[in-house]
């Protein structure tokens, strides 16, 4: 890991900006749900903020990502428009998907966010196809497939990694290993110690990093992105992390190891990064406060606009089934 490129001060601050947006947004979503103002299945990314934040600082709007139901952090890090996001969560016509996608199907092609899927393991084959398109375009675009540790056991994971390796595609398989798949600990679903070891079977680099450490995550992502842009093919990154709010918001997490949970809490990446920024003189307490206050204000505005927006017209039922409206 020591030979990885490191984020400079400005990049580190940018990572914090993104991560803080994700965390505050998550807190606000939960608050709205608890108050009964938003009704939806919600898979909180709390605890996993650093992974997409440290990745996205090296991506452009042109780069593609595919993600999963637990992917709101991936979206926000890549620049999903906040107003359209909240409107979509509220099922309003002003949402990116006109309220027809919802939290599990967020899409924003202008920013390269092409597919969000609720089917475990399905982000990899599609991201592989996007990488094929990117390679044909010759635009040096990178395609990122986000998925969890549970998804690494689906056949599509293996098929996609193999095909991407054979075709030398610019795709990054980013496994966000939060140690649980729904209620199942990884202990019950694999015998190899690291999911990244599986990359060897497909002749691609595979690395396991502490996804909660911005230096490691940034470095591994940068190396993989540069490799993809240089036409050298795919990489599997396993980013170790932890999810603090259980699988689906509202479940108790009784299947989780108590000591593990307590230990993870002491390693919450958000206060750690915040304290580091101050300790290293990258930002003052006041500057960070200002960033956080600004984020809250933006969320306030997005939330208010979403709640004021109309629901989609019932004619939307027939629209977008096909390109032409159906009779």
């Amino acid at each position, binding site marked *: 890991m020591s030979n990885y490129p490191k984020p400079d001060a400005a990049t580190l601050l940018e990572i914090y900006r993104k991560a803080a947006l994700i965390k505050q947004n998550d807190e606000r979503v939960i608050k709205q749900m608890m108050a009964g103002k938003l009704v939806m299945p919600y898979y909180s990314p709390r605890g996993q903020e650093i992974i997409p934040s440290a990745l996205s600082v090296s991506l452009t709007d042109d780069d*593609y990502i595919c993600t999963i139901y637990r992917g709101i952090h991936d979206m926000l890090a890549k620049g999903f428009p906040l107003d359209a996001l909240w409107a979509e969560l509220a099922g309003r016509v002003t949402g990116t998907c006109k309220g027809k996608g919802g939290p599990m199907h967020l899409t924003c092609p202008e920013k390269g966010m092409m597919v969000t899927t609720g089917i475990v393991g399905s982000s990899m084959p599609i991201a592989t196809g996007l990488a*094929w398109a990117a390679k044909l375009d010759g635009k040096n675009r990178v395609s990122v497939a986000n998925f969890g540790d549970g998804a690494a056991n689906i056949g599509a994971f293996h098929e996609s990694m193999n095909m991407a390796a054979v075709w030398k595609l610019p795709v990054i398989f980013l496994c966000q290993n939060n140690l649980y798949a729904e209620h199942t600990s990884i202990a019950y679903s694999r015998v190899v110690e690291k999911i990244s070891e599986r990359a060897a079977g497909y002749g691609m680099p595979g690395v396991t990093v502490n996804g909660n450490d911005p230096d490691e995550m940034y470095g591994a992502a940068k190396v993989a992105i540069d490799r993809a842009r240089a036409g050298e093919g795919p990489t599997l990154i396993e980013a170790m992390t932890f999810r603090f709010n259980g699988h689906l918001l509202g479940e108790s997490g009784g299947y989780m190891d108590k000591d593990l949970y307590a230990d993870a809490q002491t390693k919450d990446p958000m206060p750690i990064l915040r304290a580091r920024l101050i300790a290293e003189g990258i930002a003052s307490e006041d500057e960070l406060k200002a960033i956080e206050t600004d984020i809250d204000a933006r969320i306030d505005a997005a939330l208010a606009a979403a709640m004021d927006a109309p629901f989609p017209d019932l004619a939307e039922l027939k629209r977008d089934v096909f390109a032409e409206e159906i009779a």
Partner: protein
Amino acid sequence: MTEIKKMTIVEAINLALHDAMAADPTVLVLGEEVGDVQEGGVMGVTKGLSTKFGEDRVKSTPISEQAIIGAAIGAAVGGYKPVAEIMLMNFITVPMDMIVNHAAKLRFMSGGQTGVPMVIRTMTGSGFSTGGQHSDYLEAWFAHTAGIKVVAPSTPDDAYGLMRSAIDDPDPVLFIENLPSYWTPAPVTKQIIPIGKAKVAREGSDISIIAHSLMVTHSLAVAEKLAADGISVEVVDLRTIAPWDRETVLASVRKTGRAVIVHEAVKQFGIGAEIASVITEELWGTLKRPVQRVGAAYSAVPFSKPLEQAHAPTPDSIADAVKAALA
């Protein structure tokens, strides 16, 4: 338009792919053995394409059906028009997630932001003693899924014209080729045939047969035979199963007052049920007899020759149904 040459369905599809690829650089072909190193597959449908258009645009894949359809979806979302081959229709069970949850739904779930302009070519049909896992017709599964079009040509001319339309369609199209019909030469005019339009393959006044794929050929033979007995049979070739051409079908049955629907798929829950129901709803009062359906027996396709022959509709069983409807 004017070039009228006799060719087989295999040659007609090859020509359609060739012409589409020549006309539009975004048209791609992928699937197991589609390249010329592998001789364009066991049937040779894609022969010559990789030599002409290069291995970037004509990709032979590993045996990875989920990755094939996923790659096609990704490439389609990324701005290309891929034609993916699933060697035999039974193998489409493997990438069902990709087709049903992703290809068919991404347009709707994204509120129209992303479309999936891809074609899935597949082949099927009983008669080769291949038993239960190599000759099923599964079109009803897809016709039942909103967001994917289903096409099944019965002649080389239709195969050419429908393939060109399918490739240019902005939405996913499942293109079902009938293996027993593969090698019968017939004139190909190179006319583009619109998706969603049926054809009156033979005019008649006593009864309408509604069919697709090989069953059209059988039905035309039945019509020919019954003409000698003074029975005038009209044969409607659906050509497109979803969305099916209600107008043409209803106009025919309005004229004849009697209808028999024939398909090679198992009769129970097949597309005949849907069509019969619509005819009954729309033409109740005009109908002289209840609508009849002819389909395969409710079993897997059997291996043993006599059983296999008794499984799917034959000209004799179709003729019996027609006579019953006329009695």
